[in-house]
């Protein structure tokens, strides 16, 4: 017997992760209505919001996002992103991992030990893994 839309969309919601790491792509796709990934990002954000999934991010990621939206015309969005991070952190739904000296040292060590790693090989990728 075919499943009803209620079964598919209400009784069997997709499993949500315990927490989700927001990297630069997430912020940029959500903040840029022109982006090819915007629609998919909004859909995923709504699903995660409905599940109240905690967000984890880093100040290194935020630096990259602010640089991306650093043009004068885009700057209000950059400020809005920081406000949103602070709101979520205050609500307890987001955690911003600060890249302090010990974390930076461990990330550099990973960077040194993994010369083969591609794709997310910038330092903040290693900070995320740490």
């Amino acid at each position, binding site marked *: 017997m075919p499943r*009803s*839309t*209620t079964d598919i969309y*209400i*009784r069997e919601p997709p499993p949500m992760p315990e927490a989700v790491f*927001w990297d*630069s*792509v997430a*912020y*940029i*796709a*959500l*903040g*840029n*209505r*022109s*982006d*090819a*990934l*915007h629609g998919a*990002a*909004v859909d995923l*954000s*709504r699903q*995660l*919001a*409905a599940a109240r999934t905690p*967000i984890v991010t880093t100040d290194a990621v935020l630096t*990259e996002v602010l*640089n*991306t939206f650093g043009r004068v015309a*885009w700057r*209000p*969005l950059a400020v*809005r*992103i920081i406000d*949103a*991070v*602070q*709101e*979520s*952190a205050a*609500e307890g*739904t*987001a955690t911003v991992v600060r890249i302090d000296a010990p974390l930076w040292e461990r990330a550099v060590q990973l960077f040194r030990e993994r010369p083969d790693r*591609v*794709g997310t*090989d910038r330092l903040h990728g290693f900070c995320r893994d740490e």
Partner: protein
Amino acid sequence: MDAPTVRREILEMLERLTPEQLEVIREFVAQMSESSVSGLYSLHEHAISTGVSDLAAQHDRYLYQRTPADA
């Protein structure tokens, strides 16, 4: 009435609705969900149109002039 009972009654009523009525309900629930979230989960409500369609996927290239061949 407790929440599980309410949920069951709603699901039973949903089964009797037409696809058009389900769409109305979906939009209503989506609006309720939107109004109850804030911070990062409402970030898309403040989105701007940059005119750049590959900014997310290619932000490395825009920021660092990095190409896939550099990976």
